[in-house]
């Protein structure tokens, strides 16, 4: 694979970086990333991954754009209201970088299709707005042995953590266990969210994907990063893999087919 003149120009400021160069840029161009959710987190993730030259990006979202999304979901514009988010995102991302092969999956990710959708990814970014989907992505990626990052935002706060199943690092379930009842009022629509916090956390998710593909720097593994923009703090909190974790512990279960995620309970 040889970089074209256009690619050399487009990615020149990355090629200059010691950590990337032409070799790293080719790795990015050959990589396959899947992104679950094209909302507030997914928008900056998709934008920066496509801009960076991730060669193959699969985007998964069943939802359509609403006017109340627009203050934080920066891939979607006023004219996109009622349009499928995958369609709206595809249009912008393709204009941004036609070099990137974008596959759209305009479906809800469920236990019936999650393995099929995420299989063969080099990295998975979770950017949905609900616990059941985060748990499903967590369990699926552990089962498929794919590194992944999960983030969440609320009000002026955000958190992010990455898991590398192959290295047996702590997973989302090690921390949050089994969510039996979803905490009421803990959604962006109920509690509110400042538009820029998913922008910051989404950028961190994209950065995790890029670092993992390039094998540079430190991933947020065995740690959770907690960001509080009212107090201007970025804290890294140590976390530990739970050996009794039903997803990644010493006696793991194949949860995807058996666990009741209650995906259908997620409010629309």
């Amino acid at each position: 694979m040889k970089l074209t003149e256009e690619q050399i120009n487009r990615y020149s400021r990355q090629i200059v970086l010691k950590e990337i160069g032409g070799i790293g840029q080719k790795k990015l161009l050959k990589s396959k990333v899947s992104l679950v959710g094209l909302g507030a987190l997914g928008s900056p993730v998709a934008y920066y991954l496509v801009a960076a030259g991730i060669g193959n990006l699969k985007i998964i979202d069943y939802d359509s754009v609403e006017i109340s999304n627009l203050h934080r979901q920066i891939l979607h514009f006023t004219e996109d209201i009622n349009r499928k988010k995958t369609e709206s995102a595809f249009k912008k991302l393709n204009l941004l970088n036609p070099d990137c092969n974008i596959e759209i999956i305009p479906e809800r990710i469920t236990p019936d299709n999650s393995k099929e959708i995420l299989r063969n990814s080099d990295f998975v970014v979770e950017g949905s707005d609900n616990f059941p989907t985060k748990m499903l992505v967590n369990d699926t990626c552990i089962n498929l042995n794919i590194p992944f990052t999960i983030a969440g935002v609320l009000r002026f706060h955000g958190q992010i953590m990455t898991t590398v199943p192959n290295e047996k690092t702590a997973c989302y379930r090690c921390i949050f266990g089994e969510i039996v009842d979803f905490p009421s009022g803990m959604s962006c629509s109920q509690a509110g969210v400042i538009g820029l916090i998913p922008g910051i956390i989404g950028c961190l998710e994209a950065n995790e994907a890029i670092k993992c593909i390039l094998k540079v720097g430190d991933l947020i593994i065995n740690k959770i990063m907690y960001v509080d923009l009212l107090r201007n703090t970025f804290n890294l909190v140590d976390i530990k893999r739970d050996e009794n974790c039903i997803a990644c512990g010493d006696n793991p279960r194949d949860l995807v087919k058996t666990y009741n995620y209650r995906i259908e309970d997620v409010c629309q």
Partner: protein
Amino acid sequence: MSIKDMNNSKEQIMKQIDIRGKVCPMTFVYTKLALEELDAGDLLEVLLDFPAALENIPKNCKRQNLAEVLEIKEKNAGKDEWILKLMKL
């Protein structure tokens, strides 16, 4: 000298690139891409006409531990063209 070293020195490659017309940072970008295709000990001659690159390329090559400058020579005196000779590290 080991057999491997002897083999390396025997097969030392001298590559040339012409980046006249390119300005910084593209001068370094093209130099770096060319160096990436070489093995340690191979040589690269860069023909350039952007004066600031004579400082920037060596500085960046040093910072990234990419190559060592062996020689900077003027090509066709008065024409503002130079050859930068580098050895890949």
